[in-house]
């Protein structure tokens, strides 16, 4: 089997963080792929929830949804309800994990998916919050998955679409964010956690074969470092085979390039 691609490393590392018997509210793309992988391997009783209205869907390998609202996302679900209903379960505290992607993320885990540049005179308009703001406001443990690049890991996001620690634990508390807690950022280079005292991102583990220098070079701010820094185990053949089967076309070089171009533009 060929070596894992950066996206595959990220998906496998993300999937391992999801516990069996829990409920995950997953955004489309890599977070959903990681959730489905977890369910198929080590967490068969994980309930996946998608914002389009599906509770407990079982995806068809190779036909994962492109949007969280489409028929593919509803396949095999236990319950199909309204979008508002899905989010109100989150607000009620029913979901263990909120799992989202990020275009831009800063040292406090604040996520921007709205504007690059000054929002009054933006350089680039991004797709927006969708459910991301609601997910980070209400799901118990927040996990974020994104490629590790300096243009994404910035000291301060241009716009807080979905707040992390805002500017620290006290700022987060003052803002009224009491229902959720940012816990992890999963990238193709590392697994990051949050320092409890400062709310800042901390390097907890490296992806296999990645050096600390590589991580720092790809991060646009000073990253804290865990005293017990470790290396993540490489994806197993089982994990890699399953993630490829799941992603099907979505994992192909052509679609990957299309997605990448979309992200970059």
């Amino acid at each position, binding site marked *: 089997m060929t070596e894992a691609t950066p996206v595959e490393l990220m998906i496998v590392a993300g999937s391992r963080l999801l516990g069996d018997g829990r409920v995950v509210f997953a955004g489309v793309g890599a977070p959903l792929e990681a959730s489905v992988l977890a369910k198929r391997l080590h967490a068969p009783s994980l309930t996946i929830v998608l914002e389009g209205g599906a509770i407990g869907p079982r995806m068809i390998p190779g036909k994962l949804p492109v949007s969280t609202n489409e028929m593919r996302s509803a396949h095999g679900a236990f319950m199909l309800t309204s979008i508002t209903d899905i989010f109100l379960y989150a607000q009620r505290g029913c979901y263990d994990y909120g799992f989202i992607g990020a275009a831009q993320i800063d040292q406090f885990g604040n996520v921007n998916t709205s504007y690059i540049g000054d929002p009054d005179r933006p350089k680039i308009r991004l797709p927006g919050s969708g459910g991301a703001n*609601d997910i980070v406001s209400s799901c118990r443990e927040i996990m974020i998955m994104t490629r590790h690049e300096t243009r994404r890991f910035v000291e301060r996001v241009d716009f807080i679409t979905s707040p992390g620690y805002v500017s620290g634990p006290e700022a987060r508390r003052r803002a009224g964010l009491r229902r959720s807690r940012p816990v992890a950022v999963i990238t193709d280079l590392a697994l990051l956690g949050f320092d409890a005292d400062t709310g800042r991102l901390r390097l907890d583990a490296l992806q296999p074969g990645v050096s600390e220098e590589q991580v720092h070079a790809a991060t646009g701010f000073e990253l804290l470092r865990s005293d017990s820094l470790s290396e993540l185990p490489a994806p197993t053949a089982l994990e890699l085979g399953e993630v490829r089967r799941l992603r099907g076309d979505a994992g192909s070089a052509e679609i990957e390039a299309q997605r990448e171009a979309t992200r970059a533009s």
Partner: protein
Amino acid sequence: MSLAEAAALVHDGDTVAAGGCCYSRTPWAMLLELLRAERRDLVLARNLMCYEAELFLAAGAARKLVASWVGIGLRWGVPKLFREYVTRDPAIYEEWSHLSYGLRLLAGSMGMPFLPTASLLGSDLLARTPAQELRCPFTGELLVAVPALQPDVALIHVHRVDAEGNAQVEGPTFMDMELARAATTVIVTAEEVVPSAEIARHADRTLIPGFVVDAVVEVPYGSYPHECHGRYEADFDHFDTYTELVNADGEEGVRAYLSEHVEKAGSFAAFLESVGTSTLFEQRRRARELVLP
């Protein structure tokens, strides 16, 4: 009623909210009909907007968009022209989160001026919307109050409806129940118009009661090229062709699309004819496969 007659219920300057979500159960036939009728100065609102966002901007039909997200789908990204319009003038786009938009409709549907939520706190979205921070009078918890949205017109596409407007959908209901109650005028398009007895036979499936509905139009494939749960899958090839056109020619590309599918086609039926029966049948086959257990 015909699509053209229903379009006459929409007036220049109206706030028009579309049902479904992104490329699912979009009232596509009705949206194209509003463009064909050359409505102007509209505020177009939807929870997640697909590329209708830029069709309405390029056609000069909408002065403002209200949504929580605008994109065609993961593979195709943010509609290029929408991005250009908003970069030029951010004021034409009002951004909410998905739930806060939904709660605005829910408040509207309940006849209440606002609803509280735990969303938007600590974000920069808060200051750019009319939403306000609020202290709970009972617990002191800091929350956000979102103002009710009661659109002038709702456009909703469903699976089945009777002549009175009693409407049933299959699959996720998105925000259509709240939307139908919140809006002043409700236009329902449907895959099929059925006798009331047929609706009554599965009354527990009725999402929208006829007394909130003002117009009923039968439009098979009325969401196409978007999807309708269990009936037809979204036409990803159509999205590919569209994005290639717009990425290559920008505003001219969007105009060419409008010229071909709105003006020259002249009707939604003619647009479907241009898609061709073999494609329509294939999308139907794919949808059936996806709803199999």
